């Protein structure tokens, strides 16, 4: 499979990258790991006349802790990097788990979090964890910058709020409060190299180890044109003492938020059952981590 012709740019400063995007705008595509873009170009689904690699833009590949209060993750950070980062595993657990389940090792070594979000596939692994962690995305252009909550970022399959002259530079995530824990479950037909049939991320914050739930977020992927928060299920849980029965009900409500389809990966009925079961399971795992929270 051959790649169509294009002109290649490799800016070495953020300013140069933004100026290039400003000049070339709609004729250019940003290249990070290339595991989505180059596949699309080989399949002739995309034919940009310019490709701008951001691999040599300083800082794009960095995970920067902010004094324990937050973390800034460069858009170019790879799945492999996120999966093995101790801070991410410890405090931003759903993100680390999702990173370890994306594709297979050679894909994880290239696939970036920014590329995954910008690509906006409904079944992608990173959107649900970013949603339950309330990530804010920094978009920059030659004209300015804006911070977009991840929950306002996705517009539809393959569509986001990013303008052609904008670059997704980084994600900012506040550290969840004490007694928080999270998890992520991906269901595919096999363990590796599989796009999800259903994926679920959850974050729970308790008042204390045995206290009621003070905050909870659930996000589901592959079940609708964009990843969705299960807000009604969250409402049921806030203020309640966690229990198996409660989590089962939350899963039931979660199904109501979805519009799953039937395709070769699974039927609508199967997907609905899985949403229910996996929501419950993911909440149970998140709860166990919240109870075991350590300063």
């Amino acid at each position, binding site marked *: 499979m051959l790649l169509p012709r294009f002109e*290649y740019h490799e800016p070495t400063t953020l300013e140069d990258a933004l100026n290039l995007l400003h000049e070339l705008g709609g004729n250019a595509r940003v290249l990070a790991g290339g595991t989505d873009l180059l596949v699309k170009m080989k399949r002739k689904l995309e034919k940009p006349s310019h490709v701008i690699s951001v691999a040599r833009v300083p800082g794009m590949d960095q995970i920067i802790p902010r004094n324990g209060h937050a973390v800034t993750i460069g858009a170019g950070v790879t799945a492999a990097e996120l999966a093995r980062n101790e801070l991410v595993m410890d405090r931003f657990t759903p993100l680390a788990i999702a990173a370890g389940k994306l594709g297979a090792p050679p894909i994880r070594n290239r696939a970036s979090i920014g590329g995954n979000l910008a690509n906006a596939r409904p079944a992608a692994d990173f959107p649900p964890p970013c949603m339950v962690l309330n990530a804010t995305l920094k978009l920059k252009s030659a004209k300015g910058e804006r911070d977009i909550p991840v929950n306002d970022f996705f517009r539809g399959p393959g569509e986001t709020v990013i303008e052609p002259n904008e670059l997704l530079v980084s994600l900012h995530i506040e550290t969840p409060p004490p007694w928080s824990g999270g998890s992520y479950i991906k269901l595919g037909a096999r363990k590796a*190299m599989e796009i999800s049939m259903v994926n679920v991320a959850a974050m729970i914050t308790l008042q204390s180890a045995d206290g009621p739930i003070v905050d909870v977020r659930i996000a589901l992927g592959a079940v609708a044109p964009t990843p969705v928060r299960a807000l009604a299920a969250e409402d049921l849980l806030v203020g309640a003492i966690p229990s198996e029965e409660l989590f089962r009900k939350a899963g039931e409500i979660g199904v109501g938020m979805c519009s799953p389809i039937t395709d070769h990966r699974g039927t609508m009925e199967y997907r609905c059952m899985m949403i229910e079961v996996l929501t419950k399971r993911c909440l149970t795992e998140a709860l166990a981590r919240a109870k075991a929270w350590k300063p």
Partner: protein
Amino acid sequence: MKTLIQLTVNGEPVEAAVDANRTLLQFLREDLELTGAKHGCGLGDCGACTVILDGKPVNSCLVLAVQANGRSVLTIEGLAENGKLHPIQQAFVDKGAIQCGFCTPGMILSAKALLDTNTKPTEIEIRTAISGNLCRCTGYQKIVQAIQDAAEAMTGKEGS
């Protein structure tokens, strides 16, 4: 328009002018005539094209040659030393982990990347490490055993 790139391939400096739309796999196979990395799917699915880029296994069909500028590439051709097979290669031969051989270069490089950072991998860690490498001859069991043997041979050597 061609771009001039300089990189290290199997320890040797290489300089070449390449088209932007040339993949690293095409560059290795067609320009450098290093045909060990195979062209399977061309889409990141099969792992036949796996090479090690700056210490990490990647699908060279999804890397542009220009992206490898200034970086270091290891292909299967760079593994044997002074005509002596690398312990992982030897283990694959000894265990019968090679049938048609199409997946073998990729399998061995994925295994090498694993053993470089984890000298005593569990079976699950081995299976995860090669999960991006498909074998149509279905020789996974022998492949896993070969990697286990290689790990033992390599740590044994270090200890002595």
